[in-house]
C-alpha cells in the first residue's frame, strides 16, 4: 500500500526528536482523528532553519510525511520553508494512498504552525503565513 520511500521514512524517520528551547514549535491535528504532529524549529539569526525535529502520533503515512517535511525545510530560510507544500511532500515520497493525503496536509500545517510560533516569538511577520487552523496548542 505504501511506496518504498514512505516505508523508508517510516522505518528510519529523519530528524525525529525534540529541540530544547526551540525558535518555534507547532502542534497540529488531534487525537480523535488519530494524527498529531509536532514540529520544532531552530532558526539562526539570518532566518535560516538550522535544525528541525518532529514528533508524531499517527499512522505510517503520518510519520513518513513528518519526516520528509523536516528534510524539505532543513537548511532553508523561513520564507522558503513556507513554500513547502503538501504536494511537494507527497511527491518526494513517491505518492501516498488517497486516504492518506490528509497526512501530507497535516505535515504542511505543522511547518506553518512552527513558523507561526517563531514569527510570534520574534515579533515579525512572515509574508503569506496565516495563522494555523489545526493547532491544538501547547499543553
Amino acid at each position, binding site marked *: 500500500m505504501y511506496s518504498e520511500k514512505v*516505508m523508508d521514512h*517510516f*522505518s528510519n*524517520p529523519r530528524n*525525529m526528536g*525534540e529541540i530544547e528551547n526551540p525558535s518555534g514549535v507547532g*502542534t497540529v491535528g488531534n*487525537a*480523535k*482523528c*488519530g*494524527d*498529531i*504532529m*509536532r514540529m520544532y524549529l531552530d532558526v539562526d539569526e539570518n532566518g535560516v532553519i538550522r535544525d528541525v525535529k518532529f*514528533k*508524531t*502520533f*499517527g*499512522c*505510517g*503515512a*503520518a*510519520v513518513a510525511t513528518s519526516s520528509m517535511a523536516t528534510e524539505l525545510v532543513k537548511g532553508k530560510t523561513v520564507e522558503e520553508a513556507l513554500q513547502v507544500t503538501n504536494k511537494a511532500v507527497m511527491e518526494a515520497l513517491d505518492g501516498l494512498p488517497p*486516504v492518506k493525503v490528509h497526512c501530507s496536509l497535516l505535515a504542511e500545517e505543522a511547518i506553518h504552525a512552527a513558523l507561526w510560533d517563531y514569527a510570534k516569538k520574534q515579533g515579525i511577520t512572515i509574508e503569506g503565513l496565516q495563522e494555523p487552523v489545526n493547532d491544538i496548542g501547547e*499543553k
Partner: protein
Amino acid sequence: MDHKIYLDNAATTRVREEVLSEMLPFFREVYANPSAIYGFAGEAKKAVGIARERAAALIGAKPNEIYFTAGGSESDNWAIRGTIEAYADKGKHIITSKIEHHAVLHTCEYLERQGCEVTYLDVDGEGRISLEALEKAIRPDTVLVSVMTANNEIGTLEPLGRIGEITHERGVLFHTDAVQAYGHMPLDVEKMHIDLLSASGHKLNGPKGAGILYCRENLRLRPLIHGGAQERGRRAGTLNVPGIVGFGKAAALTGETLEERMRREAELRDYLIDRVLAEIPYTRLNGPRQERLSNNAHFCFRFIEGESLLILLDQRGICASSGSACTSGALDPSHVLLAIGLPHETAHGSLRLTLSEETTREELDYVVESLKEIVKRLRDMSPLYEDFARSQ
C-alpha cells in the same frame, strides 16, 4: 525468528491438511452437480449430506436445519432480512447490539431505510449487553433479536443462554452471529434457545467461501438468493461441493479437538495477556479477563497508533490486526472500542492478537519482546507521550 508468526486467526485461519485432502476429489473426480439425477451426482450429494450432518452436530442441530451459504456475511444478511420479511405480519422491530459485525449492523441500517425500526443495545465496559436493557427493549412488534456469540474484535462472550431464555419466553426470534465462536466454544442451539445461527468455514481451519445458516425447523425464512430449488428451495445456487465438504470436515475435526484446544489456547492467551500487562506500562486489556474467546487477546497501548504498530510488527514477521481508523481508511476508530467507552486516542492504539492451535509459547515470547521495543519506539516518537511524561 525466521518464520512468519501468524496471530490473526480471527481474520482467517489456515486450512487443515485433512480438510484440504477431503476437498480435493470434489474438484476433478466427483465434480458432478449434486442436484443432477445420474448416479455420478449421487456421490457428491452424499458428501454434502455428510457435511450437513457434521455441521449440525457441532451445535446440537438437526441436519435439515443447516443451510449452506457463501460465508458468514451472507448468513447474517439472510438471517435478518429473511426473518424480517417473513414475519412482516408480526412487526418490523429488530433488537441488536452496538458491537455487532458490520454484516449485521449494515443489514440493520439497510432495513431501517426500508422502514424497519432497530434498537441498538449499549454494552458495558467489557462489551456485554445488559439483559435488563434487552428485556425492556422487546416490544409486541419485535420480530428478531440478533446478538453475536462472541465479539470479533475484543473476544467478549455474550450471555447467550440468558438471551435465549428471554427471547424464548417473550416469543421473539433469536439470531446469533457465531462466526468467531462456532468451533471455538461449545454451543447448543437447543439449550441456548437459538433460532438462527451464522458460521463461516474459514474461521475454523476450513475453506473460504463456505458458511452455514442454521435455521430452526418450521420457522419462516424468505430466501435472500433467488433462483434454483437448492437447499430445499431456500437458497439458490449450485452447491459449492468442495467448500461444503471442507466445511463439514473442519467442523468434525474442530468438534473432536474442541476441549483440548480451548484449554491450550486459553493457557497461552493468559500467558500472553499477563506478560503484556506486566511488562508494557500504560496498556489495557479490552474485553473481560476470562469470559472471552480462548484464542483472543486485545490491547490498547496508550499514546501510540495502531497502524504504525502493525507495520513494525510486520517487519518482524508478526501478522496482527488493529481497530485503528487508519487500518480501515476511516477517520473513526473501531465502533466496538468506542462502544465500550474508550476515548478516541486510546482506541487508535489497539492491537488484536488471535491464536491458533499452532501457536507456541516461544512465538508469544518473541511477540512480547518485539512489542516492548516497538511500543517504546513509537512512544518516544509520540507528542502525546511527551506531554504525558512532562505532566508526571
